[in-house]
C-alpha cells in the first residue's frame, strides 16, 4: 500500500505548516530578544539590526544563573522524588491490584481538576508556619505532589503493559520484590520511566503559579525571573523576550536531546 506522491507531498506541506504555526511564537520571541525596545513595538518586521542591548540590560538587573540553578534543582529534585514515590505505588497498583485500585487512580487524577488557587491559602499558611516559604525544599515538595498523580498514572500504564509472566518467572528464579523491580521491572520499562520523568521535569520547569506565590527571591526559579520583567514597569517587550528566551533555552535543549526517549516512551506500548 503506497500513498500517491502528490498526497504525500500535500501531507508534508500540511505537517510543516502546522509545526511552523506552533513554533512561530517561540521564533518571534527569540527574534524580539535581539531587537531594540523601539524596534520591538514597531511594525513587525524580519529585517532589523540585531543587538544584544536587551540581554545586557536583563543581565545587569538580575542574576540569571541563580534563577536557572533554582529551576534545575527544583525541577529535577521534584521529579526524582515523584519517581521514588510513584514507582512503588504504580508497582503495587499494576501487579497487586485490589478492587479499589481503579478508584484510587481516578481519585488521584481528580486532584488535578481542582484549580490550584483553591488550596493556595491553606498551603501558603502551612508553608509559612513550617518556614518553607521561599525555599527550594518547599517548591520541591509542592511540585512533587503536583506531578505525582500524572507520574503514577503514566507509570501504572507502562507497568501494566509488561507481561506478568516475566515477573513471575523472576519470582520462580528466586527474586525478591526488590530484585524483581531492580533487575526486571526497571530495565524493561526504562523508556516509559524516562519519558515520564522528562514530562515531570518539563511540567515543573514551566510551573508558574506556585513558584510566583511561594517564592520571592532566594528560591525563585526562572518563571519568577520572567515575571519580574513583565508588569512592574510596564511592558518592555525586548527585555521580556530576551529573559524568556534564556528561561526556556535550557529546557528546550534538554527536550531536543531527549526527544528520541520521549517519543519512544510515549509509543512504548504500541511498538512492543
Amino acid at each position: 500500500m503506497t500513498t500517491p506522491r502528490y498526497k504525500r507531498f500535500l501531507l508534508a506541506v500540511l505537517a510543516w505548516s502546522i509545526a511552523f504555526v506552533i513554533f512561530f511564537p517561540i521564533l518571534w520571541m527569540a527574534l524580539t530578544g535581539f531587537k531594540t525596545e523601539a524596534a520591538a513595538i514597531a511594525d513587525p518586521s524580519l529585517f532589523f539590526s540585531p543587538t544584544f542591548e536587551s540581554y545586557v540590560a536583563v543581565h545587569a538587573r538580575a542574576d540569571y544563573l541563580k534563577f536557572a540553578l533554582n529551576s534545575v534543582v527544583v525541577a529535577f529534585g521534584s521529579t526524582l522524588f515523584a519517581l521514588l514515590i510513584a514507582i512503588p505505588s504504580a508497582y503495587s497498583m499494576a501487579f497487586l491490584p485490589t478492587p479499589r485500585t481503579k478508584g484510587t487512580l481516578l481519585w488521584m487524577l481528580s486532584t488535578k481538576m481542582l484549580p490550584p488557587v483553591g488550596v493556595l491559602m491553606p498551603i501558603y499558611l502551612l508553608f509559612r508556619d513550617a518556614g518553607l516559604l521561599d525555599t527550594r525544599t518547599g517548591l520541591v515538595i509542592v511540585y512533587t505532589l503536583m506531578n505525582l498523580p500524572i507520574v503514577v498514572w503514566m507509570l501504572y500504564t507502562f507497568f501494566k503493559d509488561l507481561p506478568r509472566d516475566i515477573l513471575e518467572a523472576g519470582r520462580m528464579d528466586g527474586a525478591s520484590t526488590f530484585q524483581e523491580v531492580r533487575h526486571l521491572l526497571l530495565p524493561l520499562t526504562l523508556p516509559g520511566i524516562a519519558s515520564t520523568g522528562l514530562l515531570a521535569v518539563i511540567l515543573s520547569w514551566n510551573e508558574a503559579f506556585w513558584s510566583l506565590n511561594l517564592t520571592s527571591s532566594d528560591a525563585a526559579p526562572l518563571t519568577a525571573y520572567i515575571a519580574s520583567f513583565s508588569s512592574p514597569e510596564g511592558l518592555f517587550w525586548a527585555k521580556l523576550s530576551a529573559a524568556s528566551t534564556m528561561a526556556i533555552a535550557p529546557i528546550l535543549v534538554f527536550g531536543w536531546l531527549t526527544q528520541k526517549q520521549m517519543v519512544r516512551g510515549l509509543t512504548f506500548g504500541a511498538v512492543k
Partner: protein
Amino acid sequence: MATLQLKQVVKEFGDTRVIQGVDLDIEDREFVVFVGPSGCGKSTLLRMIAGLESVSSGDILINDQRMNDVGPAERGLAMVFQSYALYPHMTVEDNMGFSLRLAGVPKAERSAKVREAASILQLEPLLDRKPKALSGGQRQRVAIGRAIVRNPSIFLFDEPLSNLDASLRVQMRIELARLHDELDATMIYVTHDQIEAMTMADKIVVLQGGVIEQVGSPMTLYHHPRNRFVAGFIGSPKMNFLDVEVAEAGARGVSVTLPGGATYEVPVEGSGQTRGTSLELGIRPEHLELDEQGPMEGEIQVLERLGGQTSLYVRMGEVPMTLMVDGDVTHRVHDRVRFGFAPERAHLFDRQGVALASLREHPLASLNRRDNKARADDE
C-alpha cells in the same frame, strides 16, 4: 527425588471456587499431565503448586513437607511458561543464569552450569543472543534451559508448546520426553492438547470445572473412561454417543437396544440395571467398522479423506455418527452405508454419565510409557 501430594486443595477467587477440593498423589520421576478444556482450573492448579497462587484451603506437600507458605523459589521447582517469559533485556546466557546470579553464585561457576544446561539443549551457539533474535522453538528451549539450570526436583510446564507450529511441536514433544528420561525429575505438564497428554504422560489427570474427573495412564483413560466427560474428551475425533435401552442385564454383560433396533451385549457390570432403563452407549469413531451385514445404517453427509484414514460423518435417522475408516474406501457423499462394532469396544453410561464398570480389562490398559521404552531397550 521429589513426590508431590495435594490434599483437598481449594482455590477461591472472590466467591468463585475454581479448584474444588483436589486430592492427588504424584510419585517421584513421574510425568504427569493435567488436561482439560479451557477454564477447567488446570493452570490455576499448576500455579498453586508453583507458589504463584495462594491456596485457599487444603495442603500442598512436596516430599511430605507442607509448602503452602513457602515462597516459589524455595520449593525446589522450576516453571516453563506458555509465553516463555524470557527476560527480553538479557542475553540467553544471562536469562539462564539469572537464578544463580540472584543466589549469589560466582560468575565462573554460573557460566559452567549454564553451559552444561545449554549443551543438553544444543543452545551453545545462541548464548550471546537476546530473546528477540531467536525463533519460537529456540525461545522455548531457552525457557526449558533456564529451568534446568536451577536443577529443580519438579519441573512445571504451563502449555509450553501451544505457541509453536505443528511440526515444531512434534519435535519438542519428543525432546521433552527425552529430557524427562535424561534429567530423572518429576514433571507436571499442563495442556489442552490431548495428543501431548497421551504421548508424554505416565499419568493423565483430567480436570473439569475445578474437579478431577479421572486419574490414570493414557491407555486406561482411553479404554476405561470413568465417565462420559472423560470418554468424550480423550480421543479424536470425539466418541459417538447414542441413547439406548436396556433389553437384558446378566452376568455376561448388559444387552442394549440401539435406536435402529439392533441389539448388542456389552460386557459391563450390569447389576442394578433393569429392562427398559435408558442408558447412553459410547463408541469411538475408530471402533466403528463398515460392514454390509452391520446392524446400523446411515447416509454419508460429509466425507474427509486424510489419506491413510477417512472420516465419514453419517446420519443414522436423527443421530449423527462419526466413523474413522480405511483411507481407501470408495464411498461418496449421500451413499448409504451399513456399519457395526465389536461389543467389547462399546461403553455404557448411566443417566448421571458414570460409566458401567467393564467386565474385561483391556490388555493394554495398564501399559504406560515406560513399558514402551523397556521393550525398545530389550530389542
